[in-house]
């Protein structure tokens, strides 16, 4: 190996190493789950939404592909897991796999639609896809329960731990384990040659193509992965709340998850989880103060966020994160 190659390899190794601050982050999450059992359902919501936002981060933060229809994969994953459980196959792990599989396949099938046109076309296509699947779920009420939603009971995780209403904390722990495993995988993807080539595609697609990167295939690949993540998030949401409903396909879901990621900052993987925590806590707080009008404050937050420049806001979050955990986020990407 020549000296400069060695230096690059060293640099990449250094980048991939787990910082103590990251470890502290996850320990803190575990502690929170155990310390506040009374808010376990809220924590569970944060964790599931964090996974959903992480899935969006994979395409928006890593590859720079915009989407207004990520709810499609959430909904498909949720219904896949829900229908499976309603048919009697109530093993949660199986549900997660099937949810992820359905999400991923749907992502793979729809990804080619994203390769043409402008950002605007992409926003519309993704929105259209999610609306279409919402309409399918609505019409196929013999399978999905239609507007009433689909209720079912889940079995025990690995045959040992019950989740659902009797075991709220178990549900949160279950979500945490799933989130952590998938996070580690996403982190690995980001450090891999595949992830690095995605960064190149994001920064300059033309140039990345000229360097010999198969940009189209990379985008389709990461979109399918992201969709599978969202499918797992949907399955997780359905399993821990014991219901799958049509509002999973709503435009609201796609907009909310985008907001979470923007609040936390896209591109460094922790942003989705941090943003989900801020968003869910904030919404819970506002909703308990003004139950009818909480949307207004979320809207105001979005407007202010954009007008002050969301790069600056996420830079603020990044800087705060850096002071708490120095050196950990040196390579934090941009939104």
């Amino acid at each position, binding site marked *: 190996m020549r000296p400069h190659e060695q230096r690059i390899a060293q640099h990449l190794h250094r980048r991939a190493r787990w910082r103590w601050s990251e470890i502290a982050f996850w320990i803190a999450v575990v502690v929170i789950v155990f310390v506040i059992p009374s808010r376990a359902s809220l924590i569970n919501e944060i964790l599931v939404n964090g996974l959903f936002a992480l899935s969006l981060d994979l395409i928006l933060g890593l590859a720079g592909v915009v989407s207004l229809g990520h709810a499609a994969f959430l909904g498909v994953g949720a219904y896949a897991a829900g229908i499976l459980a309603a048919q009697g196959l109530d093993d949660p792990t199986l549900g997660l796999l099937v949810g992820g599989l359905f999400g991923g396949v749907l992502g793979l099938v729809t990804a080619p639609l994203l390769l*043409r*046109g402008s950002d*605007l076309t992409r926003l519309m296509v993704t929105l*259209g896809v999610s609306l279409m699947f919402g309409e399918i779920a609505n019409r196929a009420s013999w399978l999905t329960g239609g507007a009433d939603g689909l209720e079912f009971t889940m079995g025990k995780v690995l045959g040992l731990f019950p989740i659902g209403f009797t075991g709220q904390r178990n549900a949160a722990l279950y979500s945490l384990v799933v989130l952590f495993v998938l996070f580690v995988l996403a982190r690995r993807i980001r450090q891999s040659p595949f992830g690095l080539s995605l960064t190149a595609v994001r920064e300059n697609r033309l140039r990345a193509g000229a360097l010999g990167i198969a940009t189209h295939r990379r985008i389709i690949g990461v979109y399918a992965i992201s969709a599978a993540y969202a499918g797992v998030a949907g399955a997780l949401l359905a399993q821990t709340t014991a219901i799958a409903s049509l509002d999973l396909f709503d435009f609201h879901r796609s907009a909310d998850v985008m907001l979470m990621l923007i609040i936390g900052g896209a591109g460094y993987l922790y942003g989705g989880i941090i943003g989900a925590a801020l968003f869910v806590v904030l919404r819970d707080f506002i909703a308990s103060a003004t139950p*009818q009008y909480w949307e*207004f404050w979320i*809207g105001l937050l*979005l*407007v202010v966020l*954009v007008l002050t420049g969301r790069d600056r806001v996420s830079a603020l979050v990044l800087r705060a994160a850096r002071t708490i955990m120095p050196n950990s986020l040196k390579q934090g990407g941009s939104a």
Partner: protein
Amino acid sequence: MLTILIDGVGYGMLLFVLAAGLSVTLGLMNFINLAHGAFGMLGGYVTVLLMNRLGVPFLVTLPLAFLVPALVGVAMERTLYRRLYGSSPLDQVLFTIGLVFMAMPIANYLLGDSPQQMHLPEWLKGRYEFAGFGVGVYRSFLIVVCGAIALALQVFLVGTRFGARLRAAVDDPTVASGLGIDVDRLFAITFAVGSGLAGLGGALAADVVGGIDPSFPTKFMVMFLIVVAIGGTNGILGALLGALLIGVLDVAGKYYIPSLGAFIIYAVMLVTLIVRPQGLFAKGDGR
């Protein structure tokens, strides 16, 4: 058969007026305004409230349904929207979603959750026989009014000096302002007209959609976007044809194959975006 066709055309014309403003801001100013429906809601509320609370005649309320959203639109354009003209589509989308999220609770707070019903004047109710088919009077009214608006817009954009300046400013704002065109003012006026048209559309739609309620902006956002996606964003004609196509398909689809519901128009939109990303009726290489 003809009844459905006419109903569809009427609905399409309505969609055109609602979406024309969006088509203009999107195509001419390259701005993604998802809050367009909020202006439609405002116009609808103006008409419905004036009629129900003050007893103002329907036709008198229509100009006001245009003016109020236009004024609100220009105020917002001057203070907020113009800061985002050069931003990325993602920023524009987030910003306007935020506006929608704000507009709906405000309407809810001021006027309540339930739809504000609209009571058409007697002379617009009922149906008449035309070549052996029953045709709704209000539908015919819609076709005539909206058709006139479409024609006026086309003449305005293609035939007048203002239209020529606008097109110049869109093609290249720098050169246009170098030639002494006040680009800033042009955009403000265009935005006002677009918002006003949305308001007028909302007022005309109040009866067709069963009253105006706070969910109007999101309910119809999708329809606007579909119309614009299918019609393309350069030119009034494309938007008109797109709106008519969607109107007829939607009405006919709901009548003949109710089990598919809104599925048909979503599918048409997706196929259009795949086959012709610039819109079905766009000329050449639109932007």
